[in-house]
C-alpha cells in the first residue's frame, strides 16, 4: 500500500477541508486511480459526499494497493488536516504521503517554504555565524563578497505535519452507501452562498431571540435551541427562506434564479413525467419546501467559500440536496462535485 503525491490548489483544498470540518471532525477518504472522495457522515445533520478528480488537488500522484483500482480507504481527522493545509497555504511546494511511524499509520505532509530574510549586519557576516550550520561549509569554499551582505538571503524552511489516520478495510466501508433520494421536485441554482448564509444566520438568530423572549415570559419553558428554517423553491426561479414564530413572520425571497434544464439522457423517467415538469407546469405558486435546522444549514452554507456554482434539488417535504461544483482555475474539464444531503424536519 503506497500513496505519495504533491499538492496543488492548496487554497481550494483547504477551503473544502474547512467546510467539511464544520460538520464533522472525522472524514472517510477514498483514494483510487481517478478520484479522491471525501465523505462526512455526522450523527445528526447533513451528510457530505465530495468527489474530486485527482488532478484538482494532487500532482505527481502515486497510488498502489492490493484492491481493484488501487483503492485505499482512510479514516482521517479533518482538524489536523486543516491545520496542516493552513501552514502549507503559502508554501512553494508541499507533498503528502502515507507512512508508518511507531506502528501508527500517518499521512505525512512535508511543506517546503522559501522565506526571504535580510542577512545580518556587515560585521557579523564576515565571520562565521555560529548559529548557521551551513556557514562553516560554505565559507570555506566560497569566499563571501561584500556586495552579498546587503542582498536578501533565501532560506528554505521544511515543516512536516503528521496526521494520524486509520486504514479501513474494504469490507467496513462497503456498508456505507450514498443516500438514495427520489427525483427532485425542484432544482434551482442558488444565489451566492455567502449572501444566503448571512441572511440565514440572521434568521437563526431571530428564532433564538424569539424563543428566548418567549421562554422568559413563560419562565422556564423549553427554549427551542435548534430553530428550523423553512426553505422553499419553485421552478420559476424563486427561492424563499421563511421563519414563523410567535412574534414575527419573516420571509426572504430571491427572484430571477436559474432553473437549469435537465438532460433527458441522464434521467430514469422521461422528462415529461419528471416531477420537476409537474412543478413547472403548476406555476410559480407551487413551492417545494423543506425545513432545515438553522445551525446545520449555516454549516452547510460555509462551503460557499469555495465560490462554486451551487444547484439545489428540493424533494418536497423530504430532503434537500446541494451540488456544489468546485471551480477549476486551470482547465474547465472535470466533474468535481461536493454533494450535501440535508434532510427535512417535519413541522
Amino acid at each position, binding site marked *: 500500500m503506497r500513496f505519495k503525491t504533491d499538492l496543488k490548489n492548496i487554497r481550494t483544498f483547504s477551503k473544502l477541508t474547512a467546510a467539511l470540518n464544520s460538520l464533522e471532525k472525522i472524514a472517510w477518504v477514498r483514494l483510487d486511480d481517478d478520484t479522491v472522495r471525501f465523505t462526512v457522515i455526522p450523527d445528526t445533520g447533513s451528510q457530505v459526499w465530495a468527489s474530486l478528480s485527482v488532478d484538482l488537488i494532487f500532482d505527481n500522484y502515486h497510488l498502489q494497493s492490493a484492491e481493484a483500482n488501487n483503492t485505499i480507504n482512510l479514516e482521517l481527522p479533518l482538524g489536523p488536516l486543516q491545520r496542516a493545509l493552513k501552514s502549507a497555504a503559502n508554501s512553494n511546494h508541499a507533498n503528502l504521503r502515507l507512512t508508518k511511524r511507531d506502528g501508527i499509520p500517518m499521512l505525512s505532509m512535508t511543506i517546503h517554504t522559501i522565506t526571504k530574510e535580510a542577512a545580518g549586519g556587515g560585521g557579523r557576516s564576515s565571520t562565521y555565524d555560529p548559529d548557521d550550520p551551513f556557514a562553516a561549509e560554505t565559507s570555506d569554499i566560497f569566499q563571501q563578497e561584500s556586495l552579498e551582505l546587503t542582498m536578501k538571503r533565501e532560506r528554505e524552511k521544511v515543516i512536516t505535519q503528521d496526521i494520524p489516520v486509520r486504514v479501513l478495510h474494504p469490507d467496513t466501508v462497503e456498508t456505507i452507501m450514498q443516500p438514495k433520494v427520489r427525483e427532485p421536485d425542484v432544482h434551482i441554482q442558488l444565489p451566492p452562498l455567502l449572501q444566503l448564509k448571512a441572511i440565514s444566520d440572521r434568521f437563526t438568530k431571530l428564532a433564538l431571540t424569539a424563543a428566548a423572549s418567549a421562554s422568559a415570559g413563560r419562565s422556564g419553558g423549553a427554549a427551542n435551541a435548534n430553530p428550523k428554517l423553512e426553505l422553499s423553491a419553485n421552478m420559476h426561479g424563486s427561492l424563499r427562506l421563511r421563519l414563523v*414564530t410567535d412574534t*414575527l413572520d419573516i420571509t426572504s425571497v430571491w427572484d*430571477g434564479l436559474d432553473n437549469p434544464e435537465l438532460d433527458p439522457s441522464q434521467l430514469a423517467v422521461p422528462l415529461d413525467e419528471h416531477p420537476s415538469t409537474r412543478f413547472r407546469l403548476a406555476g410559480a405558486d407551487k413551492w417545494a419546501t423543506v425545513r432545515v435546522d438553522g445551525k446545520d444549514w449555516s454549516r452547510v452554507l460555509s462551503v460557499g467559500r469555495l465560490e462554486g456554482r451551487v444547484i439545489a434539488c428540493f424533494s418536497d417535504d423530504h430532503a434537500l440536496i446541494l451540488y456544489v461544483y468546485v471551480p477549476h482555475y486551470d482547465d474547465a474539464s472535470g466533474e468535481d462535485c461536493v454533494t450535501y444531503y440535508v434532510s427535512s424536519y417535519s413541522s
Partner: protein
Amino acid sequence: MDSSLLQVWHAASGSPFVPTVGKDSQFLVGFVLVVLGFLLTGTFALNRTIINLPVLGIPASLALAIGVVYMFCGVGVYKKERAESRRTTTPISPPLFRAVASSTRPLYQLLKSISFTNKLHVEITESGLRFAADHARVMQGVAHWNKNLFTSYTTNFPSPPPARDGSNSDSDDADEESPTPTFQISLPAFLETLQIFGAADAAARQAKADVDPYRSNLRNYRPDAFSHQTLGMSGTCSLSYEEEGGHFSIVLEEAGVKTTCNLTTYLPEAPEDIPFDIEDLSFKIITQARWLLDALAEIAPTSPEKLTIVASRKEPYLRLTSAGGSLGSSSVDFAKGRDLLETFSVKERWIQTFKFDVIKSATEAMRIASKVSLRGDRQGVLSMQFMVEVEGTGLSFLDFRFVPYAEHEDDDDEDENDERGEGGGDRDENGMFD
C-alpha cells in the same frame, strides 16, 4: 409588481369606472341588439329602396355593431368581471403608515440604545415614529425616528373617529386629541430584522477579506469603494402599518433579495410616561456624553449595586458614587466644572440613588450621542436627554428617565452638607414610586 403601477392602482380606487350599461344586463342588451340588427337587415334586403336605407339599413348596421360589442363584453369579460368585482368589494384603503429609508444604520443605532427590554412600545405620529421602552417602571427610554431619516414618509390616519378608537388606545396619549396608532412589538426581533439589511454586503466584504489578506489586516472596517452602499445600489427598507391591529411590516430590498418581515403587534399595556416635572427642576447640566460614559466605565469594574448622583453648587459640582459592590466603592467627580460642563445650573443640592444596572443600560446611548443633558426634578426623577448627530439628517434625541430608590428617612435639607451623599433633599413624594 412594478411599484408605480401599484400606485396607479391605489389612486384609481377612488374613482371607479361605471359602465353605462350595467354588467349584469350587458348580455341581454347585446343579444337583443344583434337579433334586431338581423331582422332589420332581412327586411331591408327584401325591399331595397332609397327611402328604406335610412329607415332600415343604417339602424340595422348600427344595431349589429353595438350589439356585437356588448355581446363581447357580456360573454367574454363576464368571468373576469366577477373576480374583479369580488376584489373591489373590500375597499382598498391606504395604509395607516408607510415610510421608506435607504439605510437602516441610523435607525438601528437609535433603536439599539434603548434595547434593554423585550417589548417596544411604538407610536406613529405625523412627524415620526416614537419608540418607548420600559424597564420595571423605574426606567424608561424613548427614541425618535424623525421623518427626515426617511426618504418618504406618509401617514393616513382616519380623520376623527374618537368613538371607535377610544376603547382601543384608552388613556395613552392624553395630550393629543387625534388618536395616533400605538402598539407593541418585539424589540429584539425588530433589531435583528433591521440588521438583515446590509448583511449580504457585509458577507461579501468578509469574503473579499479572506481572499486578500492585506485588506483583512488593515482596512476591513473602512467603506469599500465597491460596496453596494457606495455604488448607489443600496436598496430600500420600507416600513408599513396597514391597519390597526395588523402586522407591522418591514420590507427590505437589496441586491436581488426581498425580505418581508411581519412583526406581530400587541396591544399597548403600560404606555404612560414616568412623571417628570419639567417646571420644577432641581438642576440641569449639559455635558459631553462621552465624559459621562467614561465616568461610568470607571465605576463599572467594581460591579456596584447602587449609584448615587450628587449635583451641587459648590465643588464637586457633579459626583457619581458607587456603592454596594463586592470590591468596594468608587466615585468620580466632575470637579473642573468650567471645562467639563457646558451648562450648569443647580437650584438646590440634589442627591439621589439609583440602581447601577439601570443607569448602565443607557451606555449605548452615551456611546453614540454627542451631548447629554442631565436634569433632576424635585421628586428625584432623573432625566437624561441625549443628542445624537445623525449623518446628513440633522439631530435626533434619546430620552431616558430613571426613578430613584425611595428614601425613607427624611431628615436632611438640601442646604445641609452631607458628605456621604445619603438621605439627600428628597421629599415624601418619593413614596409614590414604591
